[in-house]
Every structure is written in C-alpha cells, then in structure tokens.
C-alpha cells in the first residue's frame, strides 16, 4: 500500500500495519462498552423476572411508536455513516461530508425524540427509585425500580449518541479539509465502528424496553 499521502508513525512497519493496529484498539474499546452495557442488560433481565408486574406496569407508559421511530432514525444514521466511510475511501470529499452531516442530523433527531420522551416522563412523575411519584396501581409498589433501569440504560446510551455526534463532527471537519483519501481514512473508520456499536445497543434496547416489557 502506498504511503504517499500519509506518513505512518515510526513504531509501525507500514501504514497498513498502523491501520490494522488502530482498528484492533477500537475493537478492544468496544469490548469494554459491551461489558458495561451487558451488566445493565443482565440486571434488567434478572429483576424483570423477579418482579414481572413492576416491569410490565412500568413499560406501559412507554410509547413503542417513538421507540420504533428512533430505531429507524439510528439505522438510517448507520447507513449514512457507512456511506461517509465509503466516499472517504473513494476520495469523494463532498459526498463524504454530506453523509457525515446527515449522520449527525440523525443523531440530533434521535436525541430530540428522547428529549420529548424524558420531559413527558418527568412531567408525569415517572422517575427512578424514590423519586417516582406517578400512578401506583393496586398491589404494585416500587415501579421506580423499572424507571431506574429505563433512565440508566437509555441515559447511558444517549450519552454515547452525543459523544458519537461530537466524534463524527470531528471527522467531518477533517474530511472537509481533505485529510482523508483511499490511503488514509483510519479516523472515519474508527468513529464509524463506535457509531455502529451505539446503533447495535439500541437494536437490543428497543425490544427490551418498548416491546417485551
């Protein structure tokens, strides 16, 4: 592989070696992300089996249509992220920047929908743990347990969406300056992997929170 446009760091044999190593680093980081979210998923599954009524009652207040909308928004953003990488690889600066911008826009739409969901829940008193002051049906106590999981899981995921948007903006600005080409696009690739993981987590969060509940 030619290194015409990118000089690899001296501790790598080649630009290709540098690319593969960077990518492996990203995958190891994604592993830690999976373990972090994995703990929450395991906790949710166990508690929802111990207290099924609490989780069924809590999930009733979620609007699956908003969840489905956000799923489609994130899947679209994953496609445009892939296109952003594709056009960076093919030296098409304009199309790369356009697709990265659409990806950020999708992230913003996702967060906007989340904002409406959150404000609605805060207004209704559907809050975590001891702060819960929403409706309490007969025979069910501590629905706040459900909302502890809901806010923790979607909140942590939302932080990842915001972080991802910031990272995509960073590669967008670099793409705009023409820093990427078929020989060097490692940052777009790495940010893309992170963004797909954020999508991947939502793929499991959506049925868990909105559909099965």
């Amino acid at each position, binding site marked *: *592989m030619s290194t015409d446009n990118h000089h690899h760091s001296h501790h790598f044999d*080649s630009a*290709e070696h540098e690319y*593969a190593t960077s*990518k*492996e680093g990203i*995958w*190891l980081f*994604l*592993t830690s992300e*999976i*373990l972090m979210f*994995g*703990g929450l*998923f*395991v906790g949710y*599954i*166990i508690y929802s089996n*111990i*207290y099924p009524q609490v989780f069924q009652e809590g999930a009733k207040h979620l609007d*699956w249509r908003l969840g*489905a909308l956000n*799923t*489609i928004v994130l*899947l*679209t953003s*994953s*496609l445009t*992220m*892939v*296109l952003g990488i*594709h056009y960076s*690889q093919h030296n098409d600066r304009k199309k790369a920047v356009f697709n990265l911008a659409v990806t950020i826009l999708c992230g913003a739409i996702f967060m906007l929908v989340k904002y409406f969901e959150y404000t609605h829940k805060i207004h209704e008193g559907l809050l975590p743990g001891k702060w819960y002051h929403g409706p309490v049906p007969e025979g069910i*106590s*501590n629905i706040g*347990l459900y909302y502890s999981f809901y806010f923790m899981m979607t909140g942590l995921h939302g932080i990842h969406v915001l972080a991802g948007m910031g990272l995509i903006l960073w590669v967008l600005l670099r793409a705009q300056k023409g820093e990427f080409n078929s020989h060097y696009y490692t940052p777009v690739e790495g940010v*893309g*992997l992170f963004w*797909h*993981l954020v*999508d*991947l987590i939502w*793929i*499991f969060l*959506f*049925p868990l929170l909105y*559909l*099965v509940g």
Partner: protein
Amino acid sequence: MGQNGEHHAISLNTHLKVFAALIGFTLLTVATAKGMDFGSFNWVVAFTIATAKAFLVMAYFMHLKYDEKIFKAIIALSFFFVFLLFIFCVGDLATRIVQTSTL
C-alpha cells in the same frame, strides 16, 4: 486484508440491501410484538429478530465478515463474558433459599 494490503470495499448495493433488511426486521419485530401473541415466547421472538439485526450490522456495516479474524474473536469473547455474568447470576439466584422481599 492485512498481508496483501487490500481493504475489502463492500459495494453500495450490498449496504443498501442490508439497510433494507434492517428496516424490514424492525417492522417485523413491531408487527410480531404488537399484532401477535406468542405468550411467554414473545421475548424469544423479539430477541431472535434483534440478534439477526445485530449480526447484519456487525457483518456488513462493521465489516467483520471481511476483516481479520482477531476482531471476530475479540467481539465473540466480550459477548461470551456477558453470557458468563448472566449464567453465574442466574445460577446464584436459582439456588438460593427463598426469602420474602418487601420490595
């Protein structure tokens, strides 16, 4: 990739097909969860579809299908450890002496 220095570029057509499949699966999971009732198998259906979607994203969008095997091993290992966490927790809970909780 790697030795020969060629990065496998997945065609745009493939990406669009994968995207269409992902949207299709999303509609399917909503249709099965809202329109049909499989009783206690509801969550099995929903998570089978979610897993299929996850495989598509990882194989094509994250190019695991064409990438170095070590990346597949890394990601498989992380899912395995989440599975271990789950199994040990469930094993613990299932073998406890039942206590009545005030929760």
